[in-house]
């Protein structure tokens, strides 16, 4: 008989909420603004709270607002429908407060320990979060994922246009137009779960399609400045 459960090791990549100030009031205001701009993309997103900018620099810089109040910050994030799951680079006091709020204490891997005082920014490659669209993109609508990838979980209808500076993945029926590598990146790809679309474009190279009967899983990429398409075949 199979065991009722098992422990397994696994690695997940989680978005990081990097705190640059101890001023919770300011965080609250900017958070509200940013969530309005990004609409629903972060709803229920698990987050790791990284306080490195506060703990790795001279402590007296932000003396006016005092140390970061972890409990208030965590409540603020939860109110904004975000899911803080852990804290990293905290002082022992911060870690204790985080645990009291139900967060896990995470440790950075060895080469990025507290003592090294490496500037935070240089440790992570700059990367724009993927834009995830959960509603149908209808005729006349345009969606553009600037600087990153685009995932559409619903239909892209005839007469609609989706574009991204990175890759595009479309899981609903694709009947419209998709433009990957909108800023000229020739290494980008388009993947469609059910393709019956009008046009595909990668870095300015395009291909149009005649009306088809039935939709197929399709991928598109660039090879010698030619837009190539092929059915997606899964290796099982």
């Amino acid at each position: 008989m199979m065991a009722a459960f098992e422990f397994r090791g696994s690695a997940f990549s989680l978005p990081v909420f990097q705190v640059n100030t101890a001023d919770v009031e300011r965080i609250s205001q900017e958070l509200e603004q940013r969530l309005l701009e990004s609409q629903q993309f972060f709803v229920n997103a698990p987050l790791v709270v990284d306080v490195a900018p506060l703990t790795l620099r001279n402590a007296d810089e932000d003396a006016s607002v005092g140390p970061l109040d972890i409990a208030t910050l965590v409540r603020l994030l939860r109110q904004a429908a975000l899911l803080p799951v852990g804290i990293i680079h905290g002082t022992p006091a911060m870690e204790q407060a985080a645990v009291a709020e139900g967060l896990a204490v995470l440790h950075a891997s060895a080469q990025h320990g507290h003592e090294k005082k490496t500037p935070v920014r240089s440790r992570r490659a700059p990367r724009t979060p993927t834009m995830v669209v959960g509603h149908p993109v209808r005729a006349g609508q345009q969606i553009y994922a600037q600087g990153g990838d685009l995932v559409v979980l619903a239909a892209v209808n005839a007469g609609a246009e989706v574009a991204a500076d990175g890759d595009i993945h479309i899981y609903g029926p694709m009947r419209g137009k998709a433009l990957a590598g909108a800023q000229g990146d020739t290494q980008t790809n388009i993947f469609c779960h059910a393709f019956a679309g009008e046009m595909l474009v990668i870095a300015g190279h395009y291909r149009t399609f005649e009306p088809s009967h039935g939709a197929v899983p399709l991928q598109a990429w660039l090879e010698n400045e030619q837009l190539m398409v092929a059915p997606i075949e899964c290796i099982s």
Partner: protein
Amino acid sequence: MAKIIVVTSGKGGVGKTTTSASIAAGLALQGHATVVIDFDVGLRNLDLIMGCERRVVYDMVNVIQGDARLHQALIQDKRCDKLHILPTSQTRDKDALDKQGVGQILDELQQSFDYIICDSPAGIERGALMALYYADEAVIVTNPEVSSVRDSDRILGILHAKSRRAEQGLAPVKEHLLISRYNPARVAEGEMLSIEDIQELLGIPLLGMIPESESVLKASNAGTPVVFDRESRAGQAYADTVRRLLGHDCPLRFLEVEKKSLLKRVFGG
């Protein structure tokens, strides 16, 4: 609070005004205080379909501009006292409408009605935007042909982006699909899109299907919403549509190909 329902389509000539008149009359016949508003400023038609064109003295534009009171512009239907119509102006254009003016009229109507039906003009310009802006629900009228489906898709995108509910981040406008001028025989021949084709393309729940019927044209010319014609298939289909709008379970009818009788085949019919 009254429920505000916009009847819209993007494309012209698909049956928006016919549908607005019949849904409003159908709701009123079920005992709900209902007002139907003509948003097609400059191309006034609703009063003709409702058969009250000779009774229009003041219109919505007069009310917005403060030249008349709302109750002076409202016309009570002669067949059903729960039904009112707010006509529009024939001599002005869509620029006479603005969010604030329309909002004030709707606020006032909400005091005394259960349902407010907004009959949208065709297109995606000001008149159509004003008609859909305050909507709680939308009836998207679509004919079984590709251009009509495409335009319905466009107007659904606009509802999603530009309605008050979208702007204020409230629950989205509830969308209903109404397929009109449906002819099962021509669908069987492959000349028309089927209900399933349209639903797959638009991806919104089906509220009803109105079969193509001569009675619709006759009713329009006579100034009687076709829902009053209980003999006709179109009238019955509108009555079913209203029942579904009110939340009742009501199976689709008139899906079968109508067989012509021998007499009709011989003499044409």
